[in-house]
């Protein structure tokens, strides 16, 4: 069971470690992490024989920025009631989450290749009872956002400075639960909540426009009283800057609409809806993808072993 914040710590405390000084090579580090996330996700989906590559590729840079710089969350802080939380509301991008977790020490890189296998903790969708660091169980679209809202509310009540981040898919925004949560977060002025939309313009079967139009998207969230910013979801400095600005927004939750490319980094997947999932990658496809993502021959051999 989750640990409540002890009462004597509930007063407003500066619980966060000071902002990590951004080392000059931070952007390079994060870019390298993002490349790893993509490679590892492809490898794990290849081994699993099913999974959702398109939406894992599109969010890799965002995840790398969050875990690499923004979140006050480290492997030894998994039980810290004052840690920042990240909830992957678009739970089908689990391979990317496991990969970024592996990159930053929350889980083992090799083990995380057991995605979707019997008795693996790396289920097709994240499960908090398998791995506490994933914060909650997701997979049913819309729910992770509400859970993140509940966390933000719970932290506020307990006067913690911790922040809550959540990543949603664009198709996910069609769920009414998302608009319930949007209205509720604004009403309760949850400025410790930051939602990021992986705006890859595609969902399960087709483009958003063909399935259920979302535009004007920023106007929708503005009318729901969120602080909205639109960014390039593959531009690391831009993502980092937007996350920083979001964390100083007062009185309103913040939304980052991150424009992304579904399948980003794997040329044959980019912008092709059918690579959403559930797809089986052949060895040749996996190899081509890994090469395009910058893996060396040896790395490819190791990934696919």
């Amino acid at each position: 069971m989750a640990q409540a914040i002890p009462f004597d710590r509930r007063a407003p405390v500066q619980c966060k470690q000071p902002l990590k000084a951004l080392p000059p090579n931070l952007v390079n580090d994060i870019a390298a992490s993002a490349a790893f996330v993509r490679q590892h996700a492809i490898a794990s989906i290849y081994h699993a024989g099913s999974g959702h590559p398109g939406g894992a590729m599109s969010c890799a840079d965002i995840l790398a920025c969050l875990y690499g710089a923004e979140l006050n969350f480290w492997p030894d802080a998994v039980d810290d009631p004052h840690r920042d939380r990240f909830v992957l509301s678009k739970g089908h991008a689990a391979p990317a989450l496991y990969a970024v977790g592996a990159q930053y020490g929350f889980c083992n890189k090799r083990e995380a290749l057991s995605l979707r296998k019997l008795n693996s903790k790396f289920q097709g969708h994240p499960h908090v009872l398998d791995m506490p660091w994933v914060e909650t169980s997701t997979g049913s679209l819309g729910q992770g956002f509400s859970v993140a809202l509940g966390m933000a509310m719970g932290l506020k009540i307990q006067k913690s400075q911790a922040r809550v981040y959540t990543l949603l898919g664009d198709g996910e925004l069609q769920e009414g639960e998302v608009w319930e949560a949007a209205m509720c977060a604004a009403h309760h002025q949850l400025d410790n909540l930051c939602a990021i939309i992986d705006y890859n313009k595609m969902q399960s079967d087709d483009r958003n426009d063909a399935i259920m139009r979302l535009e004007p998207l920023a106007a929708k969230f503005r009318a729901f009283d969120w602080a909205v910013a639109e960014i390039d979801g593959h531009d690391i400095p831009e993502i980092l800057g937007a996350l920083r600005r979001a964390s100083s927004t007062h009185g309103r939750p913040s939304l980052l609409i991150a424009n992304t490319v579904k399948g980003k980094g794997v040329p044959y997947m980019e912008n092709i809806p059918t690579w959403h999932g559930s797809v089986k990658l052949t060895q040749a496809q996996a190899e081509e993808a890994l090469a395009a993502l910058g893996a060396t021959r040896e790395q490819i051999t190791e990934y696919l072993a």
Partner: protein
Amino acid sequence: MSAAPALIAQGNDSLREAFGKALSGLADEFKNVVVLDADIAGGTGVHHFRKSHPDRFLQFGIAEQNMMAAAGGLAATGLIPIVTTFAVFCLRAVEQARLSLAYAGRNAKIVASHPGLDVGPDGGSAQALEDMAAFRAIPGMTVISPADPIEMALATRAMLEFKGPVYMRTGRSPSKRVFGDDHKFEIGKGHIVRDGKDVTIVACGVEVARAVEAAELLAAEGVDARIVNMATIKPIDKQLLIRCAKHTGAFVTAEDHNILGGLGSAVAESLAATMPCPIEFVGVKDVFGASGEPEELAEQFGLTAPHIAEAAKRAIARKKKAK
């Protein structure tokens, strides 16, 4: 002329009021409890808590899905969220309760008022006859339906002491007293309200008082009925059911719920797996309810004491025939 009417619920001896008062009374002891409301605090009894503990009363508006899943997030920060709404609206958040509470292993509670025909005049649309079935099917979800205000207060405490997700039914209409002040309640334990040897009547919620009445009707005809208050529908007290099967060999179940999937099914499953016995099912027979006063509806849909007594006689007759 009076400017602000009193809530009809207030002051009456309903299960929802008993719950609301108990919760507010326990709030200082259970400091991590927060209450979630979807704009019907006046109807669920948690207006007491809102008044006594406004800082820990969280308003979600008319948005049950978000409320249910957000409870998972609140629980993840160590709070004990109590989700409150009407039973029928819990049915729009079954998947949220499943994934974000039960599957995620959260210590969160759902307390649903307005279950069954007991809802009365609001009519069939508002009378949840499916909630116990739906929530019972969620792995690891505990399901409780106390019988009277005394038991409701005890169950409220027990629910807060218990770790894990719980679905509890309260009730809308004035409730009959069944128990004395010395009543005990434990999650997972049924208890014998009245001993008897000819048949066991297993009941929950408002049907317990009716079962007790039925036992008196039966006694007048020389039938000795045992009454079991089965306030925990899940996990059901199998040991007690087996003992009753040995002692009485015939059963009636009584619940203000569809006869498919609720208490009756839980008893039937348990006995079929251990000591098969004739069971007669008193409950709503797979039809929707209607408007009317709760007692009128109970009569019309076959939930009153005479119906239970008739069912008991049928069960006994079947037992004898089987021998």
